[in-house]
């Protein structure tokens, strides 16, 4: 057993546990984008960053790839960590604003601006589908191709692959595939609709897709409509 400190709590975990697993086991939730329990850690999205060490000598590491060490001091929600995390989310928003997962992260972490040029990519290169295909489906039909800004995920020669069995595992695990809430701000790079409106929603909304349960924009809309109508009647 290894003992370490996470957010001031003394915890004990098995040797070989990653910081992410340790945190999760003790009920501390870290946002992740490229991690899945059934797949090997990858460390691509950097959303799971945590601060390790004490005093001036702290360091940011990705929790999903960092193994727990004896006596390590970990902070998962320090100022430095949240700042970095929110910056990462902001960049993801600029990359792929149509993804529900990313919009939800933005709402949850209170990211309400996006200072980068919006790219509207449909892939964030988290590599989940590649690992899903290879490790869980034993397919090895897709992989990373190219380098640098030309890096993308595809099949060999961009052709239909012989080894692909159309299992759909890649789509199942993709964080960018599910499209975002078609709420009032569907065109803007940041939705934030579910957190930005008040008062809270009272009407249940069938198509609610926001991370907040229930969604609130519908009520605002109804209100606005009612107000407009009443004005017309006057």
């Amino acid at each position: 057993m290894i003992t370490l400190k996470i957010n001031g709590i003394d915890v004990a975990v098995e040797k070989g546990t990653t910081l992410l697993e340790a945190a999760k086991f003790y009920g501390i939730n870290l946002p992740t984008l490229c991690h899945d329990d059934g797949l090997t850690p990858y460390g691509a999205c950097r959303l799971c960053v945590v601060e390790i060490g004490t005093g001036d000598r702290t360091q940011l590491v990705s929790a999903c790839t960092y193994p727990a060490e004896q006596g390590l001091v970990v902070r998962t929600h320090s100022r430095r960590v949240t700042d970095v995390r929110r910056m990462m989310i902001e960049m993801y928003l600029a990359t792929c604003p149509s993804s529900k997962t990313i919009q939800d992260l933005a709402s949850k972490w209170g990211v309400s601006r996006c200072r980068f040029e919006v790219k509207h990519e449909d892939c964030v290169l988290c590599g989940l589908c590649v690992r899903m295909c290879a490790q869980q489906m034993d397919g090895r039909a897709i992989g990373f191709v190219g380098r640098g800004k030309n890096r993308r995920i595809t099949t060999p020669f961009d052709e239909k692959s012989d080894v692909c069995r159309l299992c759909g595992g890649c789509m199942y695990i993709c964080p960018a595939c599910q499209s975002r809430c078609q709420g009032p701000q569907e065109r803007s790079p940041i939705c934030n609709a579910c957190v930005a409106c008040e008062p809270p929603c009272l009407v249940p909304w069938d198509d609610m897709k926001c991370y907040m349960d229930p969604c609130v924009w519908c009520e605002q809309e109804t209100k606005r409509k009612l107000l407009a109508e009443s004005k017309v009647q006057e």
Partner: protein
Amino acid sequence: MDVDKIIDKYGGKRRYLIAILQDVQEEERYLPKEALCRVAERLGMPLVDVFGVATFYSAFSLVPRGRHEVTVCVGTACHVRGSRRILEEFERRIGVRAGCTTEDLEFTLETVNCLGCCAIGPVVVVDKAYNGEMTTGRVKGIVDRCREAAKVEAS
């Protein structure tokens, strides 16, 4: 098939993947699709991994390359010494843009971001021979010499 010969030369070991691909590239001047499939099959690797390696390195090409490879350095040091103009001159003389191959498969024109010999810049590499202190005036000579060589070979 000579791809098999190359693979045999390396004992069919996976860790020689890059060496094998380099030899294929050397021989064919590009990596044909069949060759990649064969390599994957012989080494027992997923094709997508072989494809990933082949697309990762700029030394590999998936489309046929020209007989003569002209690489113009456009790194910082060469740039300030006017490599842009030299590149433009090459583009004009050869008739293709940087990164392209002529239709008759005679030339491939590439750019590179520093060759590590900035002192002799601007640098142009023609068929692996380094030409330092390039000037736009020397471009014509180089291109003509390559064309000549091709003609002699053909005759």
